[in-house]
């Protein structure tokens, strides 16, 4: 189990870690503003589902406010096991966005929360209008997925 992140030193190691997991860190405010134009804002109450297990909705989400709990895959008759809690700023659902495979787990709001939805259709529009931004996004998503794969391999 990787516990090292609890001991990242803010001024030394942590910037590297933040940079590694930061999504589109190189984008300017104006690019982000443009990107948000393609997003939909959704609000959630406690327990509302952001991503349902098995959903093939090709979209990823940016958590804008509040918290969301990620649950492990579960039998519908059983109580799901909570894996982690994601806070404002986290990116979630990028795997289904990329591969259109059913979502493995489930993501539910904890209390009042807000998320921005970026769909595959929105990506197609962005790509048609601004290929550079679409290129940036695709590579960065690929990089994040690759980092995750590396981390998993390192754990094994």
């Amino acid at each position, binding site marked *: 189990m990787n516990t090292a992140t609890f001991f990242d030193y803010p001024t030394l190691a942590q910037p590297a870690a933040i940079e590694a997991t*930061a999504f589109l860190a190189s984008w300017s405010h104006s690019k982000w503003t443009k990107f948000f134009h393609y997003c939909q804002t959704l609000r*959630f109450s406690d327990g509302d589902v952001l991503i349902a297990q098995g959903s093939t909705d090709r979209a990823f989400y940016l958590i804008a406010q509040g918290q969301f709990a990620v649950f492990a895959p579960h039998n519908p008759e059983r109580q799901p096991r909570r894996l982690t809690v994601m806070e404002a700023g986290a990116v979630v659902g990028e795997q289904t966005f990329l591969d259109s495979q059913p979502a493995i787990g489930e993501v539910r709001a904890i209390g009042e929360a807000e998320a921005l939805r970026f769909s595959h259709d929105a990506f*197609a529009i962005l790509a048609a209008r601004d290929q550079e931004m679409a290129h940036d996004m695709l590579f960065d998503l690929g990089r994040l997925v690759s980092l995750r794969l590396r981390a998993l391999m390192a754990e094994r």
Partner: protein
Amino acid sequence: MQSQVPFPNFMQMRQWLPLWVWHGIRIASVGVALALCITLIVLPDWGLYLFWRVLIPLVPLLFFVAPGLWRNICPMAALNQTPRLFEMTKGLVLPQWLKEYGYLIGISLFLALVSSRKVLFNYNGPALAILILLLLGTAFVMGSLFKGKSGWCSSICPLLPVQRIYGQTPFVTVPNSHCQPCVGCTKNCYDFNPPVAYLADMYDDDRHFAAYRKLFVGLFPGFILAFYTLPNPPAIPILAMYGYFVLYSLVSVGLFFLAESTVKVTANKLTVLFGAVALNLYYWFNAPVLANLLPTAIPTTSFVWPFRLLILGLTLFWIYRTWQKETKFVEQTVIPLTAHVGAQDSLVSHQASMVGNPEVLIAPEGKRIVATKGVTLLDLIEQNGLPIEAGCRMGVCGADPVCIVDGMGNLSKISSDERTTLERLGLAPNTRMACVARVRGHCKVSLTPEKPDLFSTSFIQGAKFDKSVEKVVIIGNGIAGVTAADHVRRRHPHCEIHLIGRERHHLYNRMAITRLIYGRSAMQGLYLLPEKWYDDYNITCWLNTQATGVDVDGQTVTLGTGETLPYDRLILTTGSSAYVPALEGADLTGVFVLRTAEDAMSIRDFVQERVCRQAVVAGGGLLGLEAAYGLHKLGLEVAVLERSGSLLRRQLDDRSGQILRNYLEGMGIQIVTEAESASLQDRRTTRHDDSRLGGGRIQQVTLTDGRTLPCDLFLICAGIRSNLTLAQSMGLTVKRGVVVDEQMRTNRPEIFAAGDVAEYKGQVLGLWPIAVGQAEVAAAGAVAPAGQADKTYSEIVPVTMLKVVGVDLTSIGVIGADGPTQSEIVLEEQEEHRYRKLVLDGNKVIGAILLGYPTEAAGVAEAVRQGLDVSKEIDAFKRGDWRWFVSLME
């Protein structure tokens, strides 16, 4: 920041005191320790009392409640960090063996020293003073040699194992004030992150980390019990005493490992339980000791039991908190790499900009969508991936009715087109067409419209009908035919209505057939009326039936099935077919037209069966572009051939055509302008499946200028031609279409025509809203008493929209000024890929092109339809302020 981090480290915590204050406290702490040593030597009884009866009974409680405070003021830590403070430390990295066994050394020191209290340190002040001085000295030396706190505080300090157990879930977290800055000297450093350090040890990949901690906490309760229950030497031989210590500790640690093997909880939970037992045992025996510190007026018994219960209560709460914390800790460690938005500030400012926007609740899914004011419900629903059909996006086809559960007043007003559609659908009064209902405030929407009980109220009030008209036959069950049937019934409650359709389907959304190419749901959702609708309206519907002849004198229609239907009134709505220009190779396999649902499904079948990769669409009109988009979505490489120099030449000017072209090309659709097909060539294959179908399969298209484009599929979208065969056989006046007057009456007074088959004032426009308007007039004329028809047709301003994702394109009426009285207002926002043009005739809007302005489109169309005077608004329009159009629809 602290609130957003589940386990903040000391750098993320607020410092309690300025650094200089801590330094002062530490000087005092070392001074006290040295003074204590002197006291132990000079006045041993006083010193021993102070140390064993006052300080030591309180220290575990301090570890338990505010361990960070001890870590900051401990005299050993202060001396350990002194060389570093004065930059006298060598800052060496701890040797590997000391890193690995430091904790075990600390445990061993603790056990040896504490058990030796019974034989030496409890009674001998100088010995204790020497021990304390040795510990202080060792801490200092190790600090001089090794980096940070690695040489003592975080490795071999004998108090560390106890601090780790009791201090793992502090009631009061005091951040570390020693390490300025942290030098990263220790793995899972307690000073760096107090709440997770112990858990990190327990979950460390190196199993020895957890093993040492389990060993110590396992034996600890037994060790304490031994300490307080064993007699002191000489009442017991010294060796026997040490033996009993070992025995008690072994039994205790044995119980721990037995529990770990049998009880299905995490090892950490057991360590917490054993730690709690150890603390309670300690204070069980030390409560009377602490009671002695109280003034003599207070009876000992009034302190001891309440104090023991207080400790028990605190530890129970501590156990609960620690167990809870472990769950959170595991959650945080399972997903090692959570991506975060690179610009949190931008996210926050965007979120702030959405505050106050209307919220649309979609039932029963329960989705709460924050809407931009003016967005249509359809856009909002589609953009959020919810299931809804769409067609014209103008409120006329009826593909997207939704139920407004709450907040009807917070939507834009209902236009005449939408009202007509709603009347045709005959749904409950809380229905709106999602494509034209714009959000102005909070509302609750259900995607399933409510069933009506409206048949009895849908008659057109005051309409007169000719009772002698008993049988009405309508040939064609497209939108014109169904609208005609609907309006005949609304005006004439008793007549027999026969609706004859060549296709196999009830009325479907012809404007959405390109979705059949790329969508997964085939015809599902494309039907615009429930099957029951025909029964409700008492309309006999003949599907998959051809009208092969009409005896206009005998007033009968002959069906292909051999049956004959007499009529009093006949309405022709036979529609149109795809136009196929003379083209060599047009009969090859893989060449298609797109006019009906069957056409679209055949294309999808063909693409799958023949594993098509490349398609060419001939025609850059609305249908051609929508089909190209459909094929692109299906995964094909698509090229569009357009004879003229730009796309949608009837709907767009050059600039907007170029913007659209850029967008489509950006999407991956190749646009080839000034391109006309000369011939199609086949593959000349001998494959069995191709020969079975007869003829070759298309391989490429050659253009008139000699260019060639490879393709597996060639789709002709070259416009439509009215279906006139039947009308011609009936002897009706036919030019491009069946010629009709303003009542949609042909040259035979009992025969009417409407829709794509009708020619009015020399025009066959082939648009859905026009077909609807003409059918209403034809129905009114068909059932009205002679000379009393209350409706006449007036030309409808053509409004067209391109239905490609990401393109909000509306073209209305005239698209370019022509003549001295006409003028244009043209505005473009290149960065936003938006363009708009208003065409004025004097002070009246006569047309517009809107690319990227969906909110204004309906208002502009309304202004054009009504011929409104906009003289007062022209300056605002030139400035780009077109809100006036929006206000028209509110």
